[in-house]
C-alpha cells in the first residue's frame, strides 16, 4: 500500500515537473519551439520519475539499513537475481527506444520545416535550392558572419542590416555563410541552431510565429570577441516588415554593429592589452545599424 502511494506521488510530482519544464525555456517564437518544448517536457517528467525513484531508494536504505554502532557482522549475501536483472535491462531499453522514436518524429518534422544539411558552394544546382527546392519559400535572406559581427542582406530589396527582420508566420530561407571561422547561428527563442562552416553555404529554413525582439547568439566559439558577437532578431507583422524593408532601402550605407571593433581600438590604447588576438573585421556597411541595447523578449 505504502509503495503504491509512493509511486502515485512520484508520478504526480513527475507530471508537475514536466509542466514546469515549459517555463524554463524562453518564449516560443518559431514553429520548431512547441515541438522541442513538448519533447523536453516529456523527458523532464520521465527523468524526474527515474531520478526520484533512485534517490528514494538510496534515502530509504541510508535511513533504514544503517549498521548498528557495534555491529561488525555482514548482511545477507544476495548476489543476484536473473529475473530482476533481465527486467531492469529490458525496461530501460524499451523506455529509451520510445524516447528515441518520439525524438526522431520531432526531428523529421523539424527537417520538413527546414532542411539543415549542407549545400556545397561548388555545386550550382544545390546552391540554388538543391534537394529541397520544392519546399523553398520565396523570401531569402543572406546571413554573413565574421569575427565578430553579423550582417543580414535582403538581395531582392537591396537592403543590408545589422538586425535580422522577419515577418511573422512567413517561412524564410536563410543562406548562412561564414567568412572566416565556424560561427553558430542560434536564436534561443526559436530553439534552432546551425553552425556556419567556412567554405560552405548552408540553406536554413525557419518560420517565426511570435512578434517581438529576440537575441541571436554566436554559439560556436569564434575567438576573442565571441561573447560580444550578438545581434537582434525582430519579428513583426508583414505590413511592418514590408514598410521596414522599403524604408531601409532608402537609408545610406553606414557602419553596422560591431562591439569587437570598438573594444579592440580601446584595448590597443591600454598599457597591458592582454594576449594576442586576431584583429576584428571592419564593421559591415549596412542600411540599418540597429542597436545592441534595446530590451529583448528572449
Amino acid at each position, binding site marked *: 500500500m505504502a509503495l503504491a502511494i509512493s509511486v502515485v506521488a512520484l508520478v504526480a510530482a513527475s507530471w508537475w515537473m514536466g509542466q514546469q519544464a515549459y517555463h524554463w525555456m524562453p518564449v516560443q517564437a518559431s514553429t520548431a519551439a512547441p515541438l*522541442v518544448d513538448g*519533447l*523536453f517536457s516529456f523527458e523532464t517528467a520521465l*527523468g524526474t520519475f527515474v*531520478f526520484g525513484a*533512485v534517490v528514494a531508494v*538510496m534515502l530509504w536504505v*541510508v535511513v533504514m*539499513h*544503517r*549498521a548498528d554502532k557495534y*555491529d*561488525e*557482522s555482514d*548482511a*545477507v*549475501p*544476495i*548476489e543476484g537475481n536473473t529475473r530482476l*536483472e533481465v527486467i*531492469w*535491462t529490458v525496461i*530501460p*531499453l524499451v523506455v*529509451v527506444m520510445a*524516447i*528515441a522514436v518520439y*525524438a*526522431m518524429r*520531432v*526531428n523529421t518534422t*523539424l527537417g520538413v520545416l527546414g532542411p*539543415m*544539411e*549542407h549545400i556545397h558552394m561548388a555545386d550550382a544546382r544545390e546552391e540554388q535550392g538543391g534537394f529541397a527546392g520544392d519546399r523553398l519559400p520565396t523570401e531569402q535572406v543572406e546571413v554573413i558572419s565574421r569575427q565578430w559581427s553579423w550582417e543580414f542582406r535582403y538581395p531582392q530589396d537591396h537592403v543590408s542590416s545589422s538586425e535580422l527582420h522577419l515577418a511573422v508566420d512567413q517561412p524564410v530561407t536563410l543562406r548562412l555563410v561564414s567568412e572566416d571561422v*565556424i560561427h*553558430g547561428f542560434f536564436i*534561443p*527563442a526559436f530553439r534552432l*541552431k*546551425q*553552425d556556419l*562552416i567556412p*567554405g*560552405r553555404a548552408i540553406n536554413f529554413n525557419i518560420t517565426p510565429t511570435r512578434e517581438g525582439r529576440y*537575441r541571436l547568439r554566436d*554559439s*560556436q*566559439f*569564434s*575567438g*576573442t570577441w565571441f*561573447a*560580444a558577437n550578438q545581434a537582434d532578431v525582430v519579428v513583426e507583422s508583414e505590413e511592418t516588415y514590408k514598410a521596414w524593408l522599403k524604408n531601409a532601402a532608402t537609408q545610406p550605407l553606414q557602419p553596422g554593429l560591431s562591439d569587437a571593433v570598438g573594444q579592440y581600438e580601446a*584595448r590597443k590604447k591600454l598599457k597591458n*592589452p*592582454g*594576449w*594576442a588576438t586576431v584583429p576584428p573585421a571592419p564593421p559591415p556597411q549596412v542600411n540599418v545599424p540597429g542597436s545592441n541595447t534595446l530590451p529583448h523578449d*528572449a
Partner: protein
Amino acid sequence: MTSATFSENFQPEQGSWKRYFSFNTDAKVIGIQYIVLAFFYFLIGGLLAMIIRGELITPASDLVDRSVYNGIYTMHGTIMLFLFIFPVLNGLNNLLIPTMIGAPDMAFPRLNAVAFWLVPIFGTLLISSFFVPGGPAYSGWWSFPPVSIQNPIGTFVNGQGLWITAVALSGVSSIMGAINFVTTILRMRAPGMGLFKMPIFCWTALAAQCLQLVGLPALTGGALMLLMDLSFGTSFYRAEGGGDPVLYQHFFWFYSHPAVYVIILPVFGIFSELFPVYSRKPLFGYVYVALASFIIDFLGLIVWVHHIFPSGVAQWMRNFFMFSTMLIAVPTGVKVFAWLGTIWRGKLRLTTPMLFCLGGLFNFVFAGITGIMLATVPIDIHVSNTYFVVGHFHYVIYGAAVMGIFAAIYHWFPKFTGRMPYEGLGKLHFALTFIGANLNFLPMHPLGLMGMPRRVSSYDPEFAFWNVLASLGAFLLGVSIIPFLLNMISSWVRGEKAPANPWNAIGLEWLLPSPPHEDNFGDFVPTVISRPYGYGSGLPLVENQAAYEQALKEN
C-alpha cells in the same frame, strides 16, 4: 626471495620519501607519484576555474581581458583533463591493479615509469605556454579549427603549438599506460583468478584502457594534422585551401567522447568495489556489471557525432547517433541498479568513502538523465554549446568521477600510506564538495535552457541570477579542497598507524600489510578460489587464507 619465509615476505616496506622523486619502477611508488602530481595540477586548474567564475559573477567582461579569459578557460579544461583526471586514474590503476590481481608489479615497470615521467614533461610544456609571447592556446580544450590555426602572434613557437605538442605527448603517455595495464590484467593474474573472479575495478580498468588503445590514435593523428596546418601551412582543415574544418571535429570526438568512458568506467569500478564493503553485501549482479563495461566500450565508439549535430550532419546520421547514444543508458542503468541492489538491505556504514560513493551516485544519475536529453537531437540542437552542456559535463566529471576518486583515495589511503585518514575532516570535505558541486553545476542547466552560450566572458543581464549562484558554488567547491589537503598531509605525517585491513574488506590487496612490500606477495602469491565480494558468504577468497591473516598478525 626464494629463501624468504612466508612471514618475512610480509614485512611492510619502510622506504625513504626520496623514492617518490626518483625514476622508481615500483607501481605503488608510481601510483602515488601520479596522484600527488595530478593534485598539484588540480590546484592550478581549480585556481583557473575560480578566475572563470569570478569573471562570470557579473554580466560584464570586467575581471580579465577577453583574450586572457579565453586562454584561462582553455587551460582550465586542458589541465583538468590531461593533467589531472587521466593521471590521477592512472595513479589508482598503478596502486590497485597489481595488488588486486596478485601481481608483483606492472608487466613493463620501466615503460610504466617512462609513461609517468612524461606527465611532468608535457605538464611543464603546457604551463610554460602562459609565458610565451601571445599567451597560451585560447581555442578551448577541443581546439576546433579554423580558430585554432589562426596564430595571431605569427611566431613558430606559440601557445597553440605547445598545446598540441603537449596533448600529443599526453596521448603517447596514455598509450604506454594502456599497453601496460591491459597486458598486466590479462597476463599477470594470480593463480585461480579467472576473468570472472577478477574485481570489477580491474574489469572497468581493462575496458577503459582498451578504449584508449582504439580511440587515441584518431586524436593523435587529428592533432598532428592540426599542428601541420598551424605551423607548416598545410590545408587539412583550412577551407580556403580545400580542407574541411568539420573533419577535425570527427577525429576529435571519435576519441574525446570515449574519453569520458575512460574516465567514468574506473569510477564505476570504484563504486562497485566500495558499495559491497560498506554495505557488507556481495556486489549484486557481478557478471552483468562486468560485461556492461564492455558493452559501454562498444557503444561508446559509435556515438561521437552527437557532439556535432549542429555542424550540419545528415538527418540519417542524427537519427543513428541519437539511437546509439541512448542505448548507452541501458548498460549504465544496469550498473546503477546493481549498486542499488547491493546497498538494498545491507548494513550500511556511512564512512567518508561511502558518503562520496552515495553522493557520486546521486550526481551521476542526475547527469545520466540530462545526458539522455542531450542525446535527443531536437533538444540537443537547442542546448548544445550552451551552459546546459557545461552543467551536464561537470556533473559527470566532478559530481561523479571526482567524487569517486575521492572515495577511492580515502578507502585505499591506509593501504598505501600505512596511516589512517581523519574521518571528521573527510566528512567535512564531503559535505562541502557535495553542496558546492550542486550549487555550482545545477544553475548551469537553467542558464543553458535560457540560451546562454558556453565559453562567453560576458553575457546579457537576464543570466545574472543563476551565474551568481554558480559562482558561489564554485568558490565553495574551491574551499572544499582545504580540508582534503589538510587531511592528506596531516594523516600521512602523523595519522594513526593503519592495520592491514581497517575496513574489514575482502580482496587480495587487503591480505597485504599496509603499506605492502615492494613486490607485493613476492613468492607467496595466493591461489584465488572464490569470486570477490564474498561478504556474508563465509567463503575464503584464497587458498590457505588463514595463513596469510596469521602472517599479517605476526607483523
